[in-house]
């Protein structure tokens, strides 16, 4: 116990990130279930308005800041040193600081539920001046601001660590152009974190100053400007979207390559597209503000459209990796195929809302709710579970049960689509997001009923996943170094790996060192 609390080992830190993000995932999932219980029927009063506002605020906040982004950071913590042949991260104590700041920050945000007045209830985007109203709101909003600042600082520290580790700690033979795609995606992600998160920290501090120290950053009566809040928040918030998807793009590339028994197709294109997405993502923030009438819509619309191109390149590369391969449909591979199918829908609806005339209808409606759940849920979350199945043997030395895993994947995919497809239509029928209830007009009752049924299916699938974890850990079937036939360096060490990762560093002479060894390719020491 003390050993885990005081560790600076990247694998233990990564594991603790993963376990704690799964804890936050369960909390956010319960909140999602409460939302769908309330919205299952029109004019529902099961959950009071104020409680409902806290629930959707905390669901979004937890999924974004405490699950999807930090899970990727935890996974990267575990994987990057293994993938590049390093003994640990460059700054192990900084790494531990990051972990604990994250956990404390997350618990701080959730502590709002224990205060008088409840948790933050201004939406995950926390728009000022709504978030600056101190009358009638308790300490929940302040805990949100402080907690997110802590997790933000945690992300910044860890991103510095990733960049330095990747640049300086690669093993002999591991050139930049031999690094696995996941590691490359984490370079782009880390740079985005360093660009975006300081802005979040600043804007959280500004709201705190306005609330308690007589500041007027966002108060027009005193020369402040509420539009400034939106600019600052989305200057962080849009890169954040890509911070939550780029690592998972990498995961998907690794898994598809492994189970197609082929190298990643278009490796160079994959790397360039990651940086193209990262670069463009810094110039699209105001597409969240098309309806404010305060920004240049054509400019931000144009840049947003352009992001479709590097994302399309990635699709070509994933499909190209499968093309003429020898595909084994294991659970992680099935989840990656689900990722492709879901994320495509998120991408297509994304191009739609990049068009201001369409956004005038879709913005702040359930169409947008559908859109971002297809990217972050159907995309990132499916890849998150694919990563769990794929790397579970490496992290814990135990392989998850495949039969239960496939049931989980099927139920999750069905439940996800039953939940979120109706939301797009609900949005076009006039359902605004964040409504605590809705009238019985048009097809809203039917569409919302379907969504709630889908959520019940998702809940069953998630329970099945945790049952799978318990059953598999109890059975403890031994796995060797490499249960999947992976190609990158981490599959050449034991599962779980020894303290400093490699007892003897394997030769690295190509992008696929594990396949070189497995297939007995002549390894010249030239």
């Amino acid at each position, binding site marked *: 116990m003390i050993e885990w609390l005081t560790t600076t080992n990247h694998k233990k830190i990564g594991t603790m990130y993963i376990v704690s993000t799964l804890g936050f995932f369960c909390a956010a999932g319960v909140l999602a279930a409460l939302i769908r219980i309330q919205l299952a029927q029109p004019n529902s009063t099961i959950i009071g308005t104020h409680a409902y506002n806290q629930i959707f605020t905390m669901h979004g906040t937890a999924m974004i800041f405490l699950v999807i982004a930090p899970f990727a950071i935890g996974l990267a913590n575990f994987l990057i040193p293994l993938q590049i042949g390093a003994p640990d991260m460059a700054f192990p104590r900084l790494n531990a600081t990051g972990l604990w700041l994250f956990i404390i920050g997350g618990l701080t945000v959730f502590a709002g539920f224990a205060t008088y007045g409840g948790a933050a209830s201004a939406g995950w985007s926390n728009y000022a001046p709504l978030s600056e109203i101190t009358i009638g709101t308790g300490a929940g909003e302040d805990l949100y601001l402080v907690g997110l600042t802590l997790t933000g600082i945690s992300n910044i520290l860890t991103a510095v660590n990733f960049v330095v580790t990747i640049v300086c700690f690669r093993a002999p033979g591991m050139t930049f152009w031999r690094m696995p795609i996941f590691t490359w995606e984490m370079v782009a992600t880390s740079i985005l974190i360093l660009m975006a998160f300081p802005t979040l920290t600043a804007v959280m501090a500004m709201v705190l100053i306005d609330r308690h120290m007589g500041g007027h950053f966002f108060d027009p*009566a005193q020369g402040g400007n509420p539009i400034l809040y939106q600019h600052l928040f989305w200057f962080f918030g849009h890169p954040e979207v890509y911070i939550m998807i780029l690592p998972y793009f990498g995961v998907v590339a690794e898994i598809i390559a492994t189970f197609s028994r082929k190298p990643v*197709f278009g490796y160079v*294109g994959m790397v360039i597209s990651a940086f193209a997405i990262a670069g463009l993502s810094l110039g699209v923030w105001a597409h969240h503000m098309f309806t404010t009438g305060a920004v240049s819509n054509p400019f931000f619309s144009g840049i947003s459209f352009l992001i479709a191109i590097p994302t399309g390149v990635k699709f070509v590369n994933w499909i190209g990796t499968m093309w003429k391969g020898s595909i084994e449909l294991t659970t992680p591979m099935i989840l990656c195929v689900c990722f492709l199918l879901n994320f495509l829908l998120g991408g297509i609806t994304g191009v739609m809302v990049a068009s201001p005339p369409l956004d005038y209808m879709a913005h702040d409606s359930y169409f947008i709710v559908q859109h971002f759940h297809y990217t972050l849920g159907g995309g990132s979350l499916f890849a998150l579970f694919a990563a769990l199945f794929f790397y579970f043997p490496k992290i814990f030395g135990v392989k998850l049960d495949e039969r239960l895993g496939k049931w989980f994947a099927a139920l999750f995919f069905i439940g996800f689509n039953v939940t979120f497809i109706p939301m797009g239509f609900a949005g076009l029928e006039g359902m605004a997001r964040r409504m605590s209830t809705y009238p019985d007009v048009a097809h809203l009752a039917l569409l919302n009923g379907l969504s709630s049924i889908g959520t019940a299916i998702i809940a069953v699938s998630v329970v099945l996943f945790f049952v799978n974890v318990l059953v598999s850990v109890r059975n403890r079937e031994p796995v060797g170094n490499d249960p999947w036939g992976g190609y990158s360096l981490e599959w050449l060490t034991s599962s779980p790996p020894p303290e400093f990762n490699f007892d003897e560093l394997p030769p690295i002479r190509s992008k696929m060192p594990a396949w070189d060894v497995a297939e007995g390719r002549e390894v010249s020491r030239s």
Partner: protein
Amino acid sequence: MKWLFDPASVQGVAMAGDWYVFIVAGIAVGIYVYVAILWCVFRYRRRGGEAQRFEKNTPLELTYTIVPLLIVLGLFAKTFLVERPVDNVASDPQEKVAVTAFRWSWQFSYLGSNVKTIGTPRRPPTLYLPLGRLVEFDLTTADVNHSFWVPAFLFKRDAIPGMTNVFDITPSRTGTFVGRCAQYCGLDHAYMTFAVQVVPAAAFDRYIASNGTAVP
């Protein structure tokens, strides 16, 4: 075409047209990529055969960069052409309505008259609009951010403290439509609704002339 949308304004008809273009393009691209993904999964399932280990195909990759570029350029052009007239504010509107959003209802006052309607969350106000006349809206808020959304007009615009947002709508069809606040604004956000009733111009004129007593 009344499939999916049934716009009730001139601007809404133009924007619905834009929606259909994007939906058709989206379905076409979607089917193409879906087929490619599922074809790979089923055609190349492991049956003892060896994988072909090619790593790249530069002409193919360039094609799949340039073709999407052309598609989004086309969509961008279409978007731009639709957006310009929608965003444009005429200098000579036929009617003017000042809309003030507040937590959690709306106030509508018809400029050049004494007619003013104020709602409450449980008694939403009705906004009367004349059929076929160009109406200018001057949108403000008394407290936090709100958003004026009429789904039948396929349009919303945010009400932001410290600024007045101006836009035009020309109702093209009589009827009663739902309006609501789209920007989350706190406790009773879900109840911040209003009704929009588009009436023949003569009925609208009677309503204004009677100081709001001759309800159409």
